[in-house]
């Protein structure tokens, strides 16, 4: 049963130097045409399930104009929503307006996710972003006054030349906004990005780790519930939990991914193909062992880890029979408390070393 849906809006007003998501520069005509084909895709695939979470991501969904946003929400009214739906849209501070926020409210959006990334000048220069603290404070205030009570802010760190003091300033600023949810990312210099092409170097592995520790310490009033995610009690991202719990979801739009029946599907990233209604780029058909691989590598991202009983009910197999957990627990890489298995906090930042033990060929 599918209960979650992701909608991709690939348009942005500017392209950031590090971004390797599926994105295009905003163009009014292409957006109009895109929305038509998005509607076609949804209608051809969606099977009328009642959804618990919808997440509109990008790109920058808030880069669409009011008319286009209205059209988008009308299309999304095809989707049936449960009474307690989590309905998220991603926004950028430089394209959000009070009118757009009001429109969100009107269509039932109840969670806002803002890409802040940093407020430090050096960082913003490298990332090629433009943000002022005043703008941020003002926007958050507007959101609150309109009644939005579930807001996420993204923080990026480990940016070239960044030091630990810069990061502390960014964290303090975000804390002062008193939002419900904070996502953090250590910068990845992906191929095909401007940073990569310019041969940008990573900061040292040791400093990166120090930064992660600082974040974990300073956000101690939040629940650290996933490797990079922190939330106040009751405000975990339910949509992202769907991914980490290895549940199925729809993904509509350019470059979106979905997990439907036994397939993980990736949509095309070519706008031309998409506008010819050739949505699918490729897919991976999963057998039981593939599904368990995903269950492990996703579930162990969560601080609480994987519940052994739930695992048994789902796969009719004992997790302890499938893996040599004793070897990992004896090395302190996995904790098995009888109810859950999880990666201890001090090993989260090297979790790949642990996760490879749960991938079977």
């Amino acid at each position, binding site marked *: 049963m599918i209960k979650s849906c992701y909608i991709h809006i690939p348009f942005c007003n500017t392209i950031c130097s590090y971004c390797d998501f599926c994105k295009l520069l905003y163009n009014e005509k292409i957006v109009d045409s895109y929305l038509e084909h998005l509607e076609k895709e949804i209608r051809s695939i969606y099977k009328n399930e009642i959804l618990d979470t919808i997440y509109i991501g990008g790109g920058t969904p808030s880069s669409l104009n009011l008319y286009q946003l209205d059209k988008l929400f009308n299309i999304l009214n095809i989707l049936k929503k449960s009474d307690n739906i989590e309905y998220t849209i991603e926004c950028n501070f430089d394209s959000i307006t009070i009118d757009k926020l009001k429109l969100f409210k009107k269509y039932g959006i109840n969670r806002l996710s803002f890409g802040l990334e940093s407020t430090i000048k050096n960082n913003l220069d490298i990332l090629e972003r433009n943000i002022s603290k005043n703008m941020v404070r003002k926007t958050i205030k507007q959101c609150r006054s309109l009644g939005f009570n579930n807001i996420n802010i993204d923080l990026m760190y480990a940016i070239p030349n960044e030091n630990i003091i810069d990061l502390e300033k960014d964290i303090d600023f975000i804390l002062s906004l008193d939002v419900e949810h904070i996502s953090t990312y250590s910068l990845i210099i992906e191929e095909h990005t401007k940073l990569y092409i310019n041969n940008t170097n990573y900061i040292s*592995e040791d400093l990166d780790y120090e930064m992660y520790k600082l974040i974990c310490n300073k956000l101690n009033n939040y629940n650290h519930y996933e490797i990079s995610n922190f939330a106040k009690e009751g405000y975990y991202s339910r949509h992202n939990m769907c991914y980490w719990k290895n549940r199925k979801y729809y993904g509509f739009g350019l470059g979106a991914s979905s997990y439907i029946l036994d397939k993980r599907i990736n949509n095309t990233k070519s706008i031309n193909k998409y506008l010819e209604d050739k949505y699918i780029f490729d897919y991976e058909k999963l057998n039981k062992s593939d599904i368990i691989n995903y269950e492990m590598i996703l579930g162990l991202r969560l601080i609480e880890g994987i519940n052994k009983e739930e695992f048994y009910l789902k796969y009719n197999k004992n997790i302890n029979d499938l893996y040599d957990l004793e070897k990992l627990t004896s090395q302190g890489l996995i904790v098995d408390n009888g109810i859950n298995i999880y990666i201890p906090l001090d090993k989260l*930042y090297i979790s*790949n070393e642990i996760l*490879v033990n749960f991938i079977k060929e």
Partner: protein
Amino acid sequence: MKRENIRNFCIIAHIDHGKSTIADRILERTGSISSRELKSQMLDDMEIERERGITIKLNAVQIKYKYNNEEYFFNLIDTPGHVDFSYEVSRSLAACEGALLVVDASQGIEAQTLANLYLALDNGLKIIPVINKIDLPNADIDKVIKELENIGFSKDEIILTSAKTGEGIDKLLESIVTNIPSPSGDVNHSLRALIFDSLFDSYRGVITSIRVVDGSIKVGDTILMMETGATYEVIGLSINTPKEKEVTSLIAGEVGYLYASIKSITDVKVGDTITLKDNPAASILPGYKEMKPMVYCGLYPIEANKFEDLREALEKLKLNDAALSFEPETSKALGFGFRCGFLGLLHMEIIEERIEREFNIELIATSPSVIYEVLLTDKTKLTIDSPVKMPDRSVISKTYEPYVKASIFSPKEYIGPIMELCQDRRGTFINMDYLDSSRVTIYYEIPLSEIVYDFFDKLKSYSKGYASFDYEFIGYKESNLVKMDILLNGEIVDALSVVVHKDFAYKRGKVVVEKLKEIIPRQLFEVPIQAAIGSHVIARENIKAMRKNVLAKCYGGDITRKKKLLEKQKAGKKRMKQIGSVEVPQEAFLSILSTSDK
């Protein structure tokens, strides 16, 4: 076929001086092969040979040539050009009465050519000097003629050729007829045939290359290998023209192939004499002096289950490479493998490459070692072919290592850097000869172990590629040798131990641990790398604990991609060797070869 009309000869030349192209041209000119059929370098039929441009396996081809209305039969026996293969050269020489000495008109004589020339003269061969590549714009024919005169040839003996254009080839063919003697030997004596090469064919078993010295052999004869005592019935005889052609018999003076359903590789020994079981010869042919391996290293299959495959590969290679030796050995770090002996570094590299390419076995090779001699306090003498076998220092009285006399040919402007290199390698200067006003030969006594590392590469880079060198073993000398161990996380990695001169141990240890620090990735915990002599640590570096290996974000769009990333990491780990609790990449085992100070 008249014995007087047979000419058996080989070609001696330095790498790249055009030996194989001359052979090609002879084949073409005599109509043995049309130019359409001629794959460049017809005689080199192994992939590696053609790629590296060097001949590493023997090959014999029969060529018909008409001269003054007489038909002559040439047997051209190919020889390897590199110093490591002087053993194989001596094998080919024993099957010949003459040799073409081919020298590049722009390069002049090289050290190895000279060494092989002396070997040929020792074997009593008639030499025809040939200056090749005279078409090159930078050819300096007069200078090369002078060089040849300096080593005892007269100007009118010398033949000028361009294998590329074909110029001079006819004159060369005539000279072969008129100057190289026909084979001696008596057809009426009992059979004596020398095995000078062999190879394994999956259909016919072992095929041997033979030179009939006395008597004759025919299909159906029962033969006796005089040294191994094995007997077989001859199933087939053939010659290479250069396509294989069946014949019913071979007589004294002829060269050809013999097969006899020989399944057991050990029955055939290159250098052995074949005779008839019913009419055996009274004495064995002088064979060859057995070449002893000079350089040893451990070869281990990367996949542990390929151990038996590796044994089979080594056995097959040994068939036509008597100088290769091997015996099983076990390493704590690397598992089951073989300790293998080689004539030199190139020999080692070629065997490794052939195993990987022709037999599809991926290898880890340990650091090469020479054979050391150790005198114990109780007066026992040991020979050590692997650092692992080095006894504890407390029971050692004296240690000895093999020395070679290195002859280095070079343009004089590189004398300085070359001498510096030799000095750096513990060399002792002997003397220096001027070959002409611009070229010198420098003689050094150097420990073989110093040459075994990257001496050749260094020599080439110090001389911009112009220097060449040859070496001969001159004996053992006392030397202050110690075994240096490498410890990872406190545990000795046996495959990384080396024997070094004590005065150089610190420098070497430092270079090696630094190199290992670069190569071994961070682990889950901090790993000390130490170089130690006994319990005395002489160099140390730390690999810091891994701090970060995480998929920082992982959302809907990323999931399949991130799983692929983890699968890639897992595959990477599989290629590493687990040593204790440390994962070591395969390149680490080669790092010990690194001697650079940078």
